[in-house]
């Protein structure tokens, strides 16, 4: 008797939900076990986590507000991943967006919000987009791997941001601390309804707009179709006469612009000024989110929110249970790992039964694992 693994011929449909929930349950159970080993209430800890993430109206709005930059960055990287262009540079494009927005906010600080804010959004998207075009150009002209160049540009972007706030943009009133002056009221993205919706701000509007544009572009336009077709690889695309080079520039530029938009929103809405601490790794989280959501917009939104809610809940759990910070990271890692591992069952089915060995070693198309030994 063997455990055999087959590739599924039909997709799981609603069964996928069962797989995801099962993976989540297993991960949470493992976390509860770890908490107990640490001498803290296991399931009680999970309840605190759950309450912290979803229990109050402010937990919901906190999670939503935190999900905004993750969603926008994830949408950006998903676009390029769809045609197998590996843009790892959302973090740097986010930084450039923050820089672009700050430039506009500081230069035209006297302007009213209805002119200044669009200008900030525009210059942020432009800066982020151009930053995304660098690895695209390097890839097309010199054959440089965009994985390496976009990753390296993250560090350059972060250093550039640091340089600016440590020198030319440093607020003279900040006692030498690395931060720009606070943006003028016109440069601030306001909260929607501070009393009711907590920290939720108008930047949220960018998400449905970007999400719908993303979906429409991919499913309803010729370019979107070409983009999907190019996902089969560069040679296929070129052979089919698709404008591969243009498409690479497009996805990297638009992806960069989306990350830049996120940078602008985060800087203006949550910090109100530029500080190096605006960079907290959303650009990297976005890659995980895009993959987990299999590059589809609605799942990206759900995943971004759930991950943000998880982090919000973990903060509450850390405070109430007095567990170390690393506990939160371990739990987040465990949950992601289980869910990603669970995706295996979406593509493959495992069954018990007599399998015909393909060759003596048992390796082959149907890889056999877990042979029982007496």
């Amino acid at each position, binding site marked *: *008797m063997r*455990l055999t693994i087959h590739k599924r011929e039909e997709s799981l449909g609603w069964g996928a939900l069962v797989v995801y929930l099962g993976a989540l349950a*297993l991960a949470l*159970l*493992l976390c*509860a*076990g770890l*908490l*107990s*080993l640490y*001498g*803290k*209430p*296991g*399931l*009680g*800890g999970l309840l*605190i986590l759950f*309450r*912290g993430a979803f229990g*109050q109206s*402010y937990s919901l709005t*906190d999670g939503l*507000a*935190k999900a905004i930059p993750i969603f926008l960055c994830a949408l950006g990287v998903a676009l390029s991943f769809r045609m197998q262009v590996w843009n790892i540079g959302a973090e740097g494009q986010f930084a450039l967006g923050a820089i672009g927005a700050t430039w506009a906010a500081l230069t035209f600080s006297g302007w009213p919000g209805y002119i200044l804010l669009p200008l900030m959004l525009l210059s942020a998207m432009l800066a982020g987009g151009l930053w995304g075009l660098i690895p695209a150009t390097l890839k097309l002209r010199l054959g440089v791997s965009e994985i390496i160049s976009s990753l390296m540009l993250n560090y350059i972007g972060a250093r550039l941001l*640091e340089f600016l706030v*440590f*020198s030319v943009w440093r607020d003279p009133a*900040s*006692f*030498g*601390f*690395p931060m720009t002056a606070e943006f003028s009221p016109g440069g601030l993205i306001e909260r929607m309804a501070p009393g009711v919706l907590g*920290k939720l701000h108008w930047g949220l509007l960018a998400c449905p707009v970007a999400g719908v544009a993303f979906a429409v572009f991919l499913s309803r336009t010729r370019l979107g179709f070409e983009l999907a077709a190019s996902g089969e690889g560069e040679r296929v695309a070129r052979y089919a006469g698709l404008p591969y080079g243009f498409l690479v520039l497009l996805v990297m530029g638009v992806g960069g612009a989306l990350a830049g938009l996120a940078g602008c929103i*985060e800087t203006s809405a*949550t*910090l*109100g*000024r530029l*500080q190096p*601490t*605006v960079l*907290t790794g959303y650009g990297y989280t976005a890659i995980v989110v895009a993959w987990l959501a299999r590059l589809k917009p609605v799942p990206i939104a759900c995943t971004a929110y759930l991950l943000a809610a998880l982090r*919000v809940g973990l*903060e*509450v759990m*850390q*405070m*109430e*249970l*007095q567990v*170390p*910070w*690393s506990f939160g990271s371990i739990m987040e890692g465990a949950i992601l790992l289980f869910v990603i591992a669970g995706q295996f069952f979406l593509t493959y089915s495992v069954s*018990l039964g007599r399998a015909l060995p393909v060759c003596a070693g048992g390796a082959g198309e149907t890889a056999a694992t*877990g042979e*029982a*030994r*007496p």
Partner: protein
Amino acid sequence: MVSKTWLRPLGLFLACLALALAGCKGGQDNAAPAAGAPKTGELKIGFLYSSAVGEAGYCWAQDQGRKALEKMEGVKTSYVEAVKEGAEAERVIENMARSGHELIFATSFGYMDPTLKVAKDFPNVKFMHCSGFKTADNVSNYFGRMYQARYLTGMVAGMMTKSNLIGYVAAFPIPEVIRGINAFTLGVRSVNPQAQVRVVWTKTWFDPALEKDAAMSLLDVGADVIAQHQDSPGPQEAAQQRGKYSIGYNSDMARFAPKAHLVSAVWDWAPMYEFIVKEVRAGTWKGGRALWWGMDKGVVDITPFGPMVPKAVQDKVLAKKAELVKGVDNIFVGPIKGQAGDVKIAAGARAEDKDLLGMTWFVEGVVGSVQ
């Protein structure tokens, strides 16, 4: 037979379940109360740290202060560590305020704006922000005059160096760090006017490998004493490996490099935190204040000297320390020259606290730039 392969994960699964249930049962009693009013008479105090507490360094020293408060009657403390500055800090501070913490210590500079934002919504909660410059009706700030301890450790370095070149592994070019380097250098040159202090910026607060490398680069160019600002013991280890000397910071770093470690400049937050809590209890706590305590109140200190520090050196440093403990602080009294030899503080003049808090220039004797 197949069942065996399945048994293992199943067993693990059941074990986890059992553990979780056991933990739940055992922990139900001491589970933290839900958000709501604190018990009467009990003062709930929250702390935010910028990095993990670990076993040495700035946040560890802060946590020692918290533990001292825990010993006071009717005080309950909690902390959240590795809180990122910005949106995350705002959420954590808000959660603390909501869950009945009446006094919140935000122990890192980057928590300043988030603290003020939350303070506006929770007028009955008292906030103490460390190392910043903004206050409000229910926000005061506090810090310690670490530069006094830096000056003393500089004296030790100045007397122990043979190459007259001292290396300083610096964190970020912000006033707190620059002030420390300046006081250290003034200490060095008070006993050894020929010596120079060479600065390397790592732009990190905790990166053991990078900070060790930075120390190595200073040792490579001839430094024979290494001072540092970051939390990691990397620079200490580098000095010991090369058979040179080192000076620690934040907490006693002797155990990381017993052969190299001369002395550490250290924090002791307990007296200040106890004072603040007593004020809150007595109803005399006020917002809008800046507490900046020195060695006279015991917030900053130096550790015992390493065995290689001669008695004569120790005596000289301790004599200066005795002055500071009495409250006589003439460290930033002119004439003090800048790097270019220009007079920054005129003879007899004393730098005001606001100048010290916003210091962005190096004194004469420092080799390096403030960028």
